[in-house]
């Protein structure tokens, strides 16, 4: 019996392990194995919600405008455009002769269809909000107007006209977002929900979809019909999700990955020592902040909020907790937006000791002390770094007599609680810009905005934000007004900004054209590999 058992086992082991063969890439092809920390959720531009889709879609689709290696706006599917004097009507001239990967022409009608589909309630696009500066977009999305009423029309096959509700100086930036890419009406009508499958999906960008094995890889191959195909150096891009960051580092070291987009921050110092300038840490448009419930006592007192904010040692957080993978933040809008001057908190320049003294005085003045300690609860979503940040702040506030308790919940519970206006004192949140403009960081504190977790309600702030919208046609004045609005938000401590995000990539010296930029966008079409 043992013999039989032995035979059977050897057979079973070899059978179950030999279910595949090694596939060696042909030598002539240039293959870029692009590691990412997570799997994209969907390859339908209208169903995306994370940057992981953005990377892949950017390689496959070409919007009206697009970005170069440095993330500057350059012509995309449109070769030129004009803007009406009042800044509300954009007319795009499409590249003549441009085609989808199946050879059919890319027309203005495809864009009309795509933009209507983005707002159509039936699509349920998470990023519908990106294009809601377009006339009737909000109404279409809410179901009160028909998709055909959207302010987008095809004048002829190569001319597209978009009408906005108000002048929007960052509209071209918006048009680089993946939710604004065109989709092929013919393909969607033919395949329905399956249009995103390899073989069905047609795209108009530098690459087309060849394979998608969920959680394993997405294989893109060069699109010979792309208008600039002659300048695309990489033949195959494999997007390889590797969730475990430490494994990803080993895969990079072993040459399985040519780049990876989210380094394990706790190893950052060692990684920099080991890999030198292959480690790229650079500012990213994002802010890590604490929301503070301004609508409830005692947090309705601005002096108290300011005392808490002042006492937090952000340098310590950035250096010790985040190994300098984040930078200390004193304003909501990170620096790096051209032409905009941020409005940091007044205490930013003071030393930490002076700030603590000032905070102590405020607390004493408000009657807090050993007999009447200030109690504060910090809510945060599950993550080792969020926990360490909260614990560090707990320790920093202890000498001031503030008794901090911590409450950790998983991400869904955390944001469910915040969105439903649940009760809390202080809660962790973060904001990453979708487009390169300060407004995206400020509008989340507007009274009616769903992200206004702090319940911030300040008439002066609202008024300045309205004025900035009205000044849409005058960029300089608009930035000045937004700056003033930010100053109000910071002075009134509507939020407590703690850290600015940095992105952290590791990039093989074999790759050229992977340029650092605040949007952390690196289209494969501008990258080459030796």
């Amino acid at each position: 019996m043992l013999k039989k058992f032995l035979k059977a086992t050897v057979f079973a082991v070899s059978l179950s392990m030999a279910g595949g063969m090694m596939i060696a890439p042909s030598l002539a092809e240039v293959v870029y194995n692009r590691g990412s920390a997570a799997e994209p959720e969907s390859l339908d531009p209208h169903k995306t919600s994370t940057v992981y889709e953005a990377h892949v879609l950017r390689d496959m689709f070409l919007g009206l405008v697009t970005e170069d290696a440095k993330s500057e706006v350059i012509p995309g599917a449109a070769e030129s455009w004009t803007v009406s004097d009042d800044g509300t009507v954009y007319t795009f001239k499409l590249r003549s002769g441009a085609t989808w990967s199946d050879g059919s022409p890319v027309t203005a009608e495809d864009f009309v269809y795509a933009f209507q589909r983005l707002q159509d309630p039936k699509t349920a696009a998470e990023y519908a909000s990106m294009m809601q500066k377009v006339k009737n977009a909000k109404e279409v999305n809410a179901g009160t107007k028909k998709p055909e009423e959207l302010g987008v029309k095809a004048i002829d096959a190569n001319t597209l006209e978009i009408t906005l509700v108000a002048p929007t100086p960052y509209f071209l930036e918006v048009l680089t977002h993946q939710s604004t890419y065109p989709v092929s009406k013919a393909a969607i009508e033919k395949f329905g929900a399956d249009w995103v499958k390899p073989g069905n999906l047609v795209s108009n960008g530098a690459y087309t979809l060849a394979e998608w094995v969920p959680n394993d890889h997405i294989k893109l191959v060069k699109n010979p019909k792309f208008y600039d195909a002659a300048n695309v150096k990489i033949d195959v891009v494999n997007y390889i999700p590797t969730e475990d960051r430490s494994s990803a580092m080993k895969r990079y070291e072993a040459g399985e990955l040519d780049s990876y987009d989210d380094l394990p921050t706790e190893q950052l110092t060692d990684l920099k020592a080991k890999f030198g300038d292959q480690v790229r840490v650079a500012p990213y448009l994002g802010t890590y902040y604490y929301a503070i419930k301004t609508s409830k006592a005692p947090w309705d007192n601005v002096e108290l909020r300011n005392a808490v904010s002042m006492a937090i040692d952000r340098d310590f957080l950035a250096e010790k907790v985040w190994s300098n993978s984040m930078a200390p933040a004193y304003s909501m809008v990170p620096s790096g937006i051209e032409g905009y001057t941020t409005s940091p908190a007044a205490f930013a320049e003071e030393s930490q000791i002076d700030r603590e003294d000032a905070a102590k005085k405020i607390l004493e003045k408000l009657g807090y002390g050993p007999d009447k300690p200030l109690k504060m609860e910090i809510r945060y979503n599950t993550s080792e770094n969020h926990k360490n940040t909260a614990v560090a702040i707990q320790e920093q506030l202890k000498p001031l007599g503030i008794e901090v308790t911590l409450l950790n919940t998983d991400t869904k519970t955390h944001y469910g609680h915040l969105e439903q206006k649940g009760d809390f004192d202080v809660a962790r949140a973060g904001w990453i810009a979708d487009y390169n403009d300060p407004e995206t960081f400020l509008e989340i504190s507007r009274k009616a905005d769903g992200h206004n977790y702090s319940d911030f309600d300040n008439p002066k702030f609202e008024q300045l934000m309205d004025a900035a919208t009205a000044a849409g046609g005058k960029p300089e004045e608009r930035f000045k007004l937004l700056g003033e609005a930010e100053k109000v938000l910071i002075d009134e401590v509507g939020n407590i900004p703690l850290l600015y995000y940095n992105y952290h990539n590791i990039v093989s010296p074999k790759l050229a054209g992977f340029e650092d930029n605040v949007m952390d966008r690196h289209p494969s079409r501008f990258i080459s590999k030796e």
Partner: protein
Amino acid sequence: MLLYVFRRLLTAIPTLFVIVTLAFFLIRVAPGGPFNQERGLSPEVKANLEAQFGLGDPLWLQYWHYLQNLLHGNFGPSYNLPDFTVGELFAKGLPISIQLGASALTLALLIGSTLGIIAALNQNKAADYAVIATATAGSTIPTFVIAPIIQLLFGLTWKLLPIGGWGDGALINKIGPVLTLALPQIAIVARLMRGSMIESLRSHHIRTARALGLSDWSIVVKHALRGALLPIVSYAGPAAAALLTGSIIVETIFAIPGVGRYFVDAALNRDYTLVMGTVVVIAIFTILFNLIVDILYAVVDPRVRYD
């Protein structure tokens, strides 16, 4: 026997129904929903999404629809990977998890049993101590420690194996994950086998066999092993159900596209349909392997009969 199997399969239906019902309502009791995230959605967008997935309907109606779809073999679309249905995700991932799990289990039974028998036959001698020490170490060192060590040694230092990835199912890509999965199982099986073999060797029928002058080989393999296999069979059933449905740790560290990750990710993401898919799959595997264990009892032990 056939009647017994048929009866057992029949009773599995109400069991599955209860499990599905409990899981359906429990996951919805958890706070937050599939569309709560760092970048919150506007009420209009959220309403559109909820309408698309039928989440606006009363809970009993959602349950009714779910049951109807389930009976047609339709698990519904995944909320978090909307390009795939839950059925497609399992169709792609489950064969991978089964391959790795089955290989690991086979290795564990083969090597673990052999080590256990060697230890039992050399009780309180050097070989026994060596097996016990290895087994204790093997079952106490967690997989999240073993896996990176394998990657470091075999992948980076000796460059024998890839660090991670499925590589379209290449043999070389499976060695690391299979070893990681198998090592703790080998340890457990060896310990179990050692214990039950020692006990079996002390039983009356073995003493009789020795008295009759049978050879050592024949005593161990034909008579003692049979009795000693029972605890292994009991253990292997649930272990198979667990191993074949994947391991989130091994899959995450080795970047393997199996289904183990869905058990945790789906719950954390409140991906209701995927959660239900994982529950149904693991329930079926558990029921099936418990049945197989019971049948094997009758095969291994002549005292067990299902008539």
